[in-house]
Structure formats: C-alpha cells, structure tokens
C-alpha cells in the first residue's frame, strides 16, 4: 500500500463522479429531501423532534451504502478491478481510495442534511451542533464502509440491492426508530446493542436532547469508528487477486 496509489484512486473516483452531475446532485440532496418529507408528514405533531435525529442517521447511511457498493461492483464487472490487481495496486489502496473519495462526499452530503434538518425543518438540537455533525459524518462513512464490504460478497448489481434488506433493514428496524430499544424483546435488544447503526441513532438522539455527556457521545462515536475501520480492513482482506 502506498499513499500515492491510494490518493490516485480517490482522485480518480471523484473525477468519475464529477462527470456525472446527476449522481452528484442526487447524492447531495436526496437525504435532505427525505428529511424534509418526514418533517412535512409530521407537521402538526411533535413526532419529528423525536425521530428527526434518527432520520439524519438513516438517509445518508442508506444512500452511501448503495452508491459505494454499486460503484465498486461496477469496477469488478467491467474488468478494471482485474486490471488494477494485475498491476502494482495494493488491495488496501483500492478500498481506502474508495473510502476516501466517498468519505469526502459523505461530509458534504451530511453537512447539507444537518443544515437542512436544523435550519429549514426546524429540528431542535439542544446539544453541540458540531458533535451532531461529527456523528452524522461517521454514520455516513459507516454506510460507505459497509457498502465496500458488501460488494465483496456480491456477484451482481441485483445481489448488492438484496444486501440492503439483509444488512441495512434489520439495523433500521432494531435501531430504536419504531420503538425504543429498551422496549424490544430481550433477544432483539441484545442484538440491537451490537448493531453499528444503533450507536449512531443513540448518539444523535442524545446530542439532540442534550441528555448525555460529551464523553458518552464520543464513546459511541469511537465504536462507530471501530466498525468503519473493521469493515475497511475486512473489505481489503476479502478482496482476492486470484478469482475462480
């Protein structure tokens, strides 16, 4: 692995995306539009102030998961990955290059989503806005990292899309959006305590309500970071130079 090849790959991925303005547009505004829709649906209630933080965790996470897994899968199927792996390209360079490129996009996307939720939809944040932003970015990065990992196990676009319900939906269902996690049946509650998205939702809700200390939130943030690093490492280990 060399920084030169990692950065070259990240730059290349960003150049590719730049040539596709529609994707950039969708990537940056879709999460905000969805948050706006949720806010609108619950206009006359105070539900949005409860689930708004979770929405900031949810939509960027899903969008980044899909975009990342599909673009790396495309690389597998177009033969460019085979070419790269026959060249002096480190497996880590490839995965990390993608993570950096989409991580950068995730920062912009999250900044827009958080700003939109707070200043347009009127989501009230009692705690630090910076902390909210940090957790939201980590969460979008988590989507990217899991997307990289998922594409390693998918053989077709169809399978990648199937990974959504398998990897992402249970995390949403068990994340405490539909029902607080402590009211889940015990077995599910234990499972939910291990799912990375639960940490993100907990942390965002804690920042919004200013219900926990900064240390508590930073601890959650570190767990999410561990998941990101773990997925990236696992993603590069599972990448094979030789294929059957």
């Amino acid at each position: 692995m060399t920084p030169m090849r990692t950065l070259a790959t990240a730059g290349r991925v960003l150049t590719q995306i730049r040539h596709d303005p529609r994707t950039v547009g969708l990537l940056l505004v879709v999460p905000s539009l969805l948050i706006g829709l949720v806010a609108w649906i619950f206009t006359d209630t105070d539900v949005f102030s409860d689930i708004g933080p979770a929405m900031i965790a949810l939509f960027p996470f899903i969008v980044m998961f899909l975009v990342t897994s599909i673009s790396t899968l495309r690389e597998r199927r177009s033969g460019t990955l085979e070419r790269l792996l026959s060249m002096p390209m480190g497996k880590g360079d490839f995965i990390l290059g993608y993570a950096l490129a989409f991580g950068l996009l995730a920062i912009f996307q999250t900044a827009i989503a958080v700003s939109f939720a707070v200043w347009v939809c009127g989501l009230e944040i009692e705690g630090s806005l910076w902390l909210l932003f940090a957790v939201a970015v980590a969460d979008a990065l988590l989507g990217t990292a899991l997307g990289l990992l998922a594409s390693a196990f998918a053989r077709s676009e169809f399978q990648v899309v199937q990974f959504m319900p398998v990897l992402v939906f249970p995390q949403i269902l068990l994340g405490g959006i539909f029902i607080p996690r402590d009211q889940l049946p015990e077995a599910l509650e234990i499972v939910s305590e291990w799912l990375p998205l639960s940490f993100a939702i907990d942390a965002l809700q804690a920042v919004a309500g200013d219900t926990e200390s900064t240390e508590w939130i930073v601890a959650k943030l570190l767990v999410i970071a561990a998941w990101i690093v773990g997925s990236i490492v696992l993603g590069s280990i599972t990448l094979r130079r030789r294929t059957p």
Partner: protein
Amino acid sequence: MVNNSDAAPGAAVIVENLTVVRGGTPVLDQLSLAVPRGRIVGLLGPSGSGKTTLMRAIVGVQVVKSGTIEVLGLPAGSRALRTRMGYVTQQASVYDDLTVRQNLAYFRRIVGAPASDVDRVIERTDLDTVAGRLAGSLSGGQRSRVSLAAALLGAPEVLVLDEPTVGLDPVLRVELWGLFRSLADDGATLLISSHVMDEAKRCDRLLLMRDGRLLADDSVRGVLEVTGTDDVEQAFLRLIERGEPDLRSTNETEAQR
C-alpha cells in the same frame, strides 16, 4: 505428453502441467507450453477453448488447481512481475466516465511510470485525436485501443493481449499488428489470443487450442508443414483429424527459422 518447456531455457513464460477448474468443470487440462522471449506468440482457438483462462493464469489472476507457471523466471502472480507485465482483458477494461487521457493518467500512477508515458502510449496507439473524449463515447475499436494503451504504460517486458483486434476494421487491424511487431522488435514478448485463424500468419509461433488442450505449439511454418497445408484453419482441422498434437520444442523449430 511431450514436455517442450525443458527445451526453452530462455523462455519468457513457461507453463507446466497446468490444470484449471472453473465452475466445477476442468477448463485447462495438464497444459504445458513455453513462450520464447522477444517473440509474438498467437494463442488461437475457438470461443470457449480456454484462451482467456490460460491468459488469466499467466497474469496471475486465475485460481489454478495444479501445475506451475513461470514468467521471466518468477512464479506467475509475483509482486515483482506486476510492473513487468501488461495485460489487456478481453473486454476493454477502462473507465467509461473518464476521458482517454484521464484513464491513462490514472493507470500510469498505479504502474508508477513517468508522466511522459501517457503521451507516448497515446501516440503509439494513435489516440491523439480522441484523447480528450470520454472513453464511453468511443467506438469499440477505439476503446480497446485505450485498453491496449494502458497496458503499454511503463513499457512492460511481457504483454498478454486477449483478443485485441476483435471487431476492428481491416486497416486498423493491420496497423495494430504493425505496432505489435515493433514492440517485439524492441524486445517485448507478446502473447496474443484470437479466434480468427487468419491472424495466425502474423505471429512467430502458434499455440492452437481446443477444449482446454493444445493441438499445436510450433512455429507458423512448422504447423503448416506438419499438416501439409498453407492455411491455418485447414491445419487446425487436420490436427483434430490426426488426433495427435504438434508439440515441437522451441529450439527444434528455431533451428529451422
């Protein structure tokens, strides 16, 4: 089975008893062959005969069941070989949403070649006029030349080209063979696959393949002599009828040159 690789000490590629299984069925069966240095070797056979699989094995991206492959004296797939070999996959493996120049600039940085290499390979593959266009907007022939140009970055010693001339117009095909010849004259070793038999005569040596086995590993002249024809397609048929492959060591046939 005749083992011709012993007789080829200076070979760029030596394959011995290579067996590859894909999707549960054996695709290559106890294959042995040698590719001499500085030569153009044509790998010819019908679609599905195992040409791509053999090339992938030589490049080191194919899981192999048994056998050994040496490239430039190193086991295939060695890290040190990755800058010394160029591989062009059967489908043009370039980024459609990058321009020709952006594609080459990226691969150049991965290979670690000097920046001037981009212009050199653009010129050699005649892509000057389309260098600023998106690869996805090019014709099939142009895209495959971009793919070829990427493999020329860093001036590799061994080039493995999987059907590089497929679907090209005849003028372009002649030009490309001219390029291959000049690369060989500069000392590169080229293994070029094709399912079009009439490309055979432009090669120095032929590997004729059918169903994962070799029908011939010989010079072009040698194959034609053994089969008593002047047409490689005919030779292919006669070798099938004969039921015995024409495997003559490099030295033996080199002496005839």
